[in-house]
């Protein structure tokens, strides 16, 4: 089966319900295994074959043998694709960087281990922007990923391989990481669901660090129910990550069909100029659906969110410049010899090993932290971050959820923004504020604009994942994106 055929299986109509494994959501696969109509071995065989035929460059590594699965385990052998940013024992984990090419970690990231323990074997490692720095997947050292909706366009980033794989039916579901939008934006551009949980609910242990105060792992899935099912098995406090909190509630599978009594806030700062007309039309249709389902829609201001990108591009590169100091050619990964002394070994290794965007961010972060500039950049950005978090707290006194488009545009053309770093950074203008505030946010498909998916972002207060998932589920049922995609053909 070609990737084009499996993509059609995900988004095409299926009047008699799912038959082949690729037509099922992950939750449907679990149910089918429970009912005895599919076996883990059949599921694995289909996805292994699909992975071998990946022609999107979504995968950087594929499992060669069926690891076997316990059909009674909670996730019943439903395989998962894992972003290359996660360390996986004995399996290449390069963060899509030349500097870690061939690196075989001696341990497995906690969140991956939790999914393995719940019975979800690892199918593949997914392509991404190098060290999760990018919004198009074009910063991968191993080549860009094609968007299955239009192969001349980007899948978004940085979790572009995970999003493209799920949208194209190459995996039932995947995990990614989100620092400023790296789960939500590619999910939006690929027409799937992506959830960034509350900061701290999922362990960061074994996730190659980009910006430690922002990085958070989350699921990329075909629907909201699958996102809840995956998240349930991802959250948890971890002694190996002292910033991990676990989740105060059991993550429930969402059931809501209505939005009666719920108040939705639309921030004018994140829904005004810059949102392209096709995206705006889908967003406005979504607001109308919220009201049809019994919700109310009001304007709510996030006055400092216009400064979020500026603060983010101080804080994230500053943290990255410190985190990426460990890649020096001494303990793991690539080494260049330099001129025979230690300093030139470091400098040459990093010059050869890092790509242009990673170097740019290391430079930006090093500059912002350097003597004489620290207060003007890092100190101010941390204060802006406080104001942005306070804006959200005040907004959630008035509304239950905030709704915006996920991305101001649909998937853009490969190469369109690579020459203009600032234009690329602004791709994340609608997702970065929630990251700075540490709150949960989900992107769900809202409809099509010019035949390409438009994502709708729903955000709630810290630890309100169950509310966000319920709201997203009710909207998902009303939107019926699959029917719109199938009708579009």
């Amino acid at each position: 089966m070609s990737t084009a055929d499996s993509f059609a299986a995900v988004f095409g109509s299926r009047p008699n319900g799912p038959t082949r494994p690729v037509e099922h959501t992950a939750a449907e696969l679990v149910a089918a295994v429970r009912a005895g109509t599919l076996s883990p071995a059949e599921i694995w065989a289909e996805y292994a074959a699909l992975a071998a035929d990946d022609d999107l460059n979504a995968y950087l590594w594929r499992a060669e043998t069926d690891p076997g699965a316990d059909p009674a385990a909670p996730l019943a052998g439903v395989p998962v694709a894992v972003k290359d940013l996660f360390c996986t024992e004995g399996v290449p984990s390069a963060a899509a960087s030349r500097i870690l090419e061939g690196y075989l970690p001696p341990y497995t990231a906690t969140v991956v281990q939790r999914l393995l323990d719940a019975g979800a074997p690892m199918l593949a490692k997914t392509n991404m922007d190098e060290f999760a720095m990018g919004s198009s997947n074009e910063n991968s050292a191993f080549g860009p990923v094609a968007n299955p909706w239009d192969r001349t366009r980007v899948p978004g980033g940085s979790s572009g391989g995970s999003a493209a794989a799920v949208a194209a039916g190459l995996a039932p579901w995947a995990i990614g990481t989100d620092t400023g939008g790296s789960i939500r934006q590619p999910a939006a551009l690929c027409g799937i669901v992506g959830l960034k949980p509350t900061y701290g609910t999922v362990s960061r242990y074994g996730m190659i660090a980009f910006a430690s105060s922002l990085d958070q792992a989350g699921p990329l899935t075909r629907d909201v129910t699958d996102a809840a099912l995956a998240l349930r098995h991802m959250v948890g406090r971890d002694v190996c990550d002292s910033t991990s909190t676990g989740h105060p509630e059991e993550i429930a599978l969402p059931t809501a069909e209505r939005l009666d009594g719920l108040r939705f806030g639309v921030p004018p700062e994140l829904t005004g100029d810059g949102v392209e007309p096709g995206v705006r039309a889908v967003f406005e249709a979504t607001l109308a659906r919220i009201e049809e389902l019994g919700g109310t829609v009001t304007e709510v201001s996030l006055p400092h969110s216009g400064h979020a990108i500026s603060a983010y591009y101080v804080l994230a590169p500053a943290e990255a410049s410190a985190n990426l100091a460990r890649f020096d050619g001494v303990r793991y990964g690539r080494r260049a010899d330099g001129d025979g002394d230690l300093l030139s070994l470091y400098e040459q290794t990093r010059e050869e090993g890092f790509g242009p965007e990673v170097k740019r961010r290391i430079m930006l972060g090093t500059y912002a932290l350097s003597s004489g500039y620290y207060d003007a950049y890092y100190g101010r950005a941390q204060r802006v971050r406080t104001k942005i978090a306070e804006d959200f707290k005040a907004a959630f006194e008035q509304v239950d959820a905030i709704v915006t488009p996920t991305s101001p545009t649909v998937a853009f053309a490969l190469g369109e923004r690579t020459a203009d770093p600032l234009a690329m950074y602004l791709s994340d203008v609608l997702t970065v504020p929630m990251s700075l505030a540490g709150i949960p946010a989900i992107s769900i498909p809202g409809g099509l604009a010019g035949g390409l998916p438009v994502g709708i972002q729903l955000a709630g207060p810290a630890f309100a994942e169950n509310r966000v998932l319920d709201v997203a589920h009710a909207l998902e049922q009303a939107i019926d994106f699959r029917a719109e995609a199938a009708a579009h053909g």
Partner: protein
Amino acid sequence: MIDRDQVLHVARLARLRLTDAEVEAMTGELSTILDHIEKIGELDLDDVAPTSHVVALENVLRADEPRPSLPRDVALSQAPDSDGVGFRVPSPGA
């Protein structure tokens, strides 16, 4: 704005050996990005506390009990160069 000499200084701090072409490109790109970032200078933030942690956590403690760590051969297994007991590098003074 950032000039060529500052770019070279920061590259040294970051242990990056940039090519001349990279220095040239970086000077323009970083200046454009910094111009955008400097908008946060317009805000009055005098009485605002900087964020140290976005989700408030009390001191996180654990029992101080010995646990196994990575065996040395495993820790060294991915090293570009090792003598079997440590990571081997050229002399800093060479």
